[in-house]
């Protein structure tokens, strides 16, 4: 058993015993075999157990009162806790704690759907329910709303939302979170916004309430354990249809972005994206086999990344577009028809741009929007034995920043001599905007049997994060083990943001028992350890 730093085996055992008296002995896990199930299955430190973050035990409460009791006991013995909703955040740490020896608070048993309000379009759920279970409930009960699951879909809407995750229906899933119930680090129960009014009639309808709007404080933080959350839902549209616009000229990227972004801001589109098919055609970062042409890798490997004229010629020679934009519209059939007509008019007026409409999706229950585990297929075809982790910087949707970030990434990889990684990554714009005004690159780092290679890749990951920070870019999310590296980039005014987080942490969690170190927020007694 791995003990948390500064906690005696006697106190740890007493805490586990008291946890058992609250949740029942069957729901406290302390044997090596049981606790190992909470390790990060995709640890970036495969083969280096001394570097891995591992839990000391796990406890699985079934209701909020049990969570409160567990937190109070943890304070009594100063035992660190690490809560997970379903613990399936693979690629960002899974159920791995931020401090070894922590007791995982596994919320999977808290899996109730408390309300689905069809008339007003919201739901209230507990953290243990996952997207697949929810989808089945929606199908069975013919709920006329879409879920917004990430892939794979066995994660929790609460966990995903609080981690600022994204999904196809809502894009920014945290933007749909409306009202939280939180167990604070002292065990007290808090409801945010209108939920603070006893017998509140509109907790989910008007989430701000009165005073500071603090829901964001419980996302990507270690300030509380969220035990209930409301979500606004996206109505299932009569029709959902996409279109693409392509050009054989790189110089058309910015005009296409301008047009698509304006359509998004007007509410004509609900998602849009931009890419360069010729530049991305040899990338295997998403698991595809290369279908491009070998000269693509030659240009991508060059320090200057190839000139627009060279890329345009390569694209023309192989009939692959230099630029491709996408847009999605949805709603009643008549509205969708008008939106597409508007898009067709806008892009038909742009010389050299080809506009193509996709097939309408009529949401007939064919499962195309269903959460699934198919994403693991992408991982499997890459021959990965030990999973992956992500480098995920955000960028503005303009051509200048897209090329600047790609130039930076390419040169960091070339400096590191990692041509394989560069070939796999190739070039990326992030392709689709989950957020209205931002793109996100998801660069996959495979964990391999080769420990030396894994070390080089971790080193490359850190260099990329640092280089991003120097160029004004930063990551939106990070593997648990690398939280400090990412938070260090948010350093304006001598890290005033992190110091503010720490001030809050010290005030509401003086014993530092809740997820110490998560998202780079350490309690006082561990801050310089």
């Amino acid at each position, binding site marked *: 058993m791995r003990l948390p730093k500064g906690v005696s085996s006697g106190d740890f055992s007493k805490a586990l015993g008291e946890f058992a008296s609250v949740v029942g002995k069957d729901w406290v*896990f302390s044997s090596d075999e049981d606790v190992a199930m909470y390790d990060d299955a995709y640890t970036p430190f495969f083969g280096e157990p001394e570097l891995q973050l591992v839990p000391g035990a796990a406890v699985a409460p079934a209701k909020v009162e049990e969570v409160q009791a567990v937190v109070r006991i943890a304070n009594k013995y100063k035992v660190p806790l690490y809560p997970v909703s379903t613990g399936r955040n693979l690629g960002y740490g899974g159920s791995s704690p931020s401090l070894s020896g922590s007791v995982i608070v596994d919320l999977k048993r808290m899996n109730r759907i408390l309300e689905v309000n069809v008339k007003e379009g919201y739901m209230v759920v507990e953290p243990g329910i996952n997207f697949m279970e929810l989808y089945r409930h929606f199908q069975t009960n013919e709920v006329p709303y879409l879920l917004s699951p990430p892939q794979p879909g066995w994660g929790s809407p609460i966990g995903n939302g609080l981690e600022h995750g994204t999904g196809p229906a809502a894009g920014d899933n945290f933007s749909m979170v409306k009202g939280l119930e939180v167990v604070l680090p002292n065990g007290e129960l808090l409801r945010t916004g209108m939920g603070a009014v006893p017998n509140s009639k509109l907790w989910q309808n008007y989430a701000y309430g009165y005073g500071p709007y603090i829901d964001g404080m419980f996302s990507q933080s270690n300030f509380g354990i969220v035990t209930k959350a409301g979500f606004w839902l996206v109505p299932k549209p009569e029709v959902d249809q996409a279109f693409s616009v392509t050009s054989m000229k790189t110089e058309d990227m910015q005009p296409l972005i301008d047009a698509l972004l304006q359509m998004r801001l007007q509410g004509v589109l609900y998602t849009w994206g931009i890419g360069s098919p010729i530049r991305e055609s040899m990338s295997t970062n998403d698991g595809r086999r290369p279908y491009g042409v070998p000269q693509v890798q030659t240009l991508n490997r060059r320090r200057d990344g190839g000139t627009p004229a060279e890329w345009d010629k390569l694209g023309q020679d192989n009939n692959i577009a230099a630029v491709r934009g996408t847009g999605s519209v949805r709603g009643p059939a008549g509205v969708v028809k008008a939106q597409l007509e508007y898009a067709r008019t806008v892009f038909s007026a742009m010389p050299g741009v080809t506009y193509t409409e996709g097939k309408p999706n009529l949401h007939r229950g064919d499962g195309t929007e269903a959460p699934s585990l198919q994403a693991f297929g992408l*991982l*499997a075809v890459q021959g990965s034995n030990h999973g992956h982790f992500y480098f995920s910087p955000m960028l503005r949707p303009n051509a200048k920043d897209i090329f600047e970030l790609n130039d930076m990434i390419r040169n960091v990889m070339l400096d590191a001599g990692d041509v394989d990684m560069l070939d796999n990554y190739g070039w990326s714009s992030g392709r689709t905007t989950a957020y209205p005004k931002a793109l996100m690159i998801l660069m996959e780092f495979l964990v391999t049997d080769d420990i030396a290679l894994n070390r080089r890749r971790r080193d490359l990951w850190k260099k990329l994060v640092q280089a991003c920070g120097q160029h004004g870019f930063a990551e939106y999310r990070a593997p648990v083990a690398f939280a400090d590296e990412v938070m260090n980039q948010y350093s304006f005014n001598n890290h005033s943001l992190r110091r503010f987080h720490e001030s809050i942490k010290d005030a509401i969690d003086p014993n530092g028992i809740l997820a110490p170190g998560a998202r780079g927020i350490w309690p006082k007694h561990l801050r310089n350890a």
Partner: protein
Amino acid sequence: MHKQAMIFIFLASLIAPIRAFADGNAEKGKAVFGEWCSGCHSPLAKTTVGAQGIAQPILQPPAGTYVLQQRYKDKIPAALEERTDLTAAQIKTRVRTGGGIMPPTRKTEVSDEQLEDLVAYLTRNNKTSAPAAPSR
């Protein structure tokens, strides 16, 4: 021979109640498989089954079936439901410890009792197995 047969029947009568207690229910195990396994272990040819029984088109090969097909090269069925050689120990170990890109499945997700049901389902066609135990 007759005496040996009598001894066998006697021993079996001692063992049977234990098996009935320890073994799972294959029908329930099928539901567990649909809930937790089929998302990655459905047959490659199937195009409309997914995790938790959700009907959906398969855009990528199911991860587990793909990996096993690469490993066995069709000498053994890659889809777990078509296997006749899996043992209880193999199934339990794989579910609880994972392996490769498959993460462990925890007791808050699949209980020990459900795991017995899953074992009953995945070993239902084993030629060497004892007669199926009655349902709990």
